[in-house]
């Protein structure tokens, strides 16, 4: 990995491609959680990698490189969402939740009709389904849920990043949990959350 990083610092195309290949899946994973659509996720991914390659000198070898990349990618996603929100704020106001569901990530209609059976590849099915449920959340609520659950941000950090009060962050998280729990219960996922 050190060799790849060194090559990336020297702007060597083959090293950059190698890093892109290696980190495509985990980084794409982050982007799909924050993005409403696959197109947005791809845009976020490439923007994030562009930032990583452009600012790779900032990584001084302290801590894990993957952690640094992840942090850059999350910041890029947040940046993207903010700029997108700014651009499409009017449009977002009139759009329903179903409009935000990506067909290739989760077929909300099929899910509703119970087409997906429990015998299907559970990992894939669950992941896609959960991603669909996640996309049911309003963007800001989803972002806060992502930051709290996946990025392990504290409410204080989320408040700083999202430029809001800590209590607002707590409220968004509570709403996200409640909405997701209800959606899971409604779709026979109560067995998955045995603690309910």
């Amino acid at each position, binding site marked *: 990995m050190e060799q790849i990083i060194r090559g990336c610092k020297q702007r060597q195309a083959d090293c950059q491609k190698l890093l892109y290949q290696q980190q495509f899946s985990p980084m794409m994973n982050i982007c799909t959680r924050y993005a409403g659509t696959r197109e947005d996720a791809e845009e976020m991914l490439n923007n994030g990698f562009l930032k990583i390659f452009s*600012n790779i000198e900032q990584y001084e070898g302290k801590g894990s490189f993957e952690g640094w990349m992840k942090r850059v990618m999350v910041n890029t996603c947040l940046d993207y969402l903010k700029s997108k929100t700014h651009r499409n704020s009017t449009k977002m106001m009139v759009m329903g939740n179903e409009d935000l569901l990506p067909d290739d990530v989760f077929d909300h209609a099929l899910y509703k009709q119970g087409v997906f059976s429990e015998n299907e590849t559970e990992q894939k099915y669950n992941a896609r389904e959960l991603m669909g449920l*996640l996309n049911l959340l309003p963007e800001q609520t989803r972002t806060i849920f992502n930051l709290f659950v*996946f990025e392990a941000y504290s409410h204080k950090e989320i408040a700083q990043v999202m430029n809001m009060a800590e209590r607002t962050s707590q409220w968004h998280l509570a709403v996200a949990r409640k909405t997701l*729990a209800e959606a899971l219960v409604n779709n026979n996922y109560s067995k998955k959350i045995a603690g*309910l």
Partner: protein
Amino acid sequence: MSSRPNIDDLFRSELEGQHHEFSDALWQRLDAQLQPERDAYHKKDRKRRAVWLLLAFLAIGGGSAWYLAVNRNSGNPELAGTQQEKNTTQTITTPQQEAAPVSRQDNNTNNNITVSPQTSEQATLPVTAKSNQPVTNTSTPVPNKTITNTVPAPGPSEIQTGKPVAVKRNNNPVPFETGNAKAITAIPVQTKKQDKPKTGKTPVLNIAPAEKQTGVQPAETVAEMPAAEVVKEEKTAPVINEPVEQPLSEQKTGTINSGIAPKQPEKNTVETKSVTDKKAKNKPVRGKTGLLVTGGTNLSSPFRKPGVYGGILVTKTIGDKHIFAGLKIANNRLDHQLVFAAKQNQPQAEKDAVIERLTILQMPFGYEFAVSKKNRPSTTFLQVGFEPAYITGLRTVYFDDRGIPGGPREEVVNSPIMSKAINRFNLSFIAGVRKQVTPRIGISLTGGYSLIDITDKQYYNRTSTNNNLKYIQAGLLFRLNK
């Protein structure tokens, strides 16, 4: 409430391990975006290498200029005169080996003395004698009477003198060779009382007109003498000078001349000197090179606080033209606000930064115009030229918003982003005045205005103020050479 952590765990466990297939199309898109940055990086890298190469050349050039300036001192007329005097002294010296044939021939009834004729080049070479016979110690002290009665020796180049002489000796033990030896006869040969040569001191072997004759220097003693030591002529003794046919120019070379002048050798020596001086005067005037050390302060300007600078300056006069070149290092304190944004990474928020200190390597060069009378110690020069510069040190404060516009900002000192955003190479137009108050000390006032923006091409510069560097330097100059 208890279910909520389970929801978190469920989503974390299910979504974190999701696998996505690599998309080559996506990479192609990113690759196209990265290409300009790669090109810019490699171009900058080449530029950086070129700058280092330039610096290396300048350092070598500066060193060479210094070397030349120092060496020219040794070639100036005054020093040349001194050298000539030295040569003159050497002219009246005779290698030690000359005594050897003397001693050998003293054994003959004719009292012939063989002195090898030496050109300047030969002076350091072994002196030859008529035969390979070693020098013996059997020489008989020659009475003064015999010495003064000179007998002419055959041969056109043989030189006679009836005067007693003092001979400075080269103490190199020299093998004798047959041939090339020319004899002079009846040179009054005598040696001073043999002083035992002390280590490191000049041994003396005089062939002088003295009643104190103690005989000729024994060959063994000669051989034991330290090498390459020269004995000065005793002033009371007339000079054994070069034969007439030896060109004067050879005498100028500062080598030992063993010729013996028949008449008025002192006068001959003086003539030699004067001819040499004439020759020196007739030499074409060469460019005068000055080597100066300079240092001073950067006066304040709209966004610059006082700083310091120091370096060297080489001036050269070629005919009526004066040129200068130098190497300075300037440390500037600034309070320059920058607002910039990367061109390639749009959409991206503008970044704020402050440049607090710059260390710049400056390499001024250009013309000087003398505005006062030349060759006076208080010459005043107007200078115009250009000054390539390279920012070697930088202290910046960059306000990092972690890629989140409007988010909390962290102050990062010497951020790598700033290193990229600042254009390290610079070129300024300079103009100033230099006044030599004394031959050694001068003062200067120079202003510079850079022709290149301090923000790198890859970044937008949104600062309302002018980002071109500008400065006024006032300082002292100290001339190292005359």
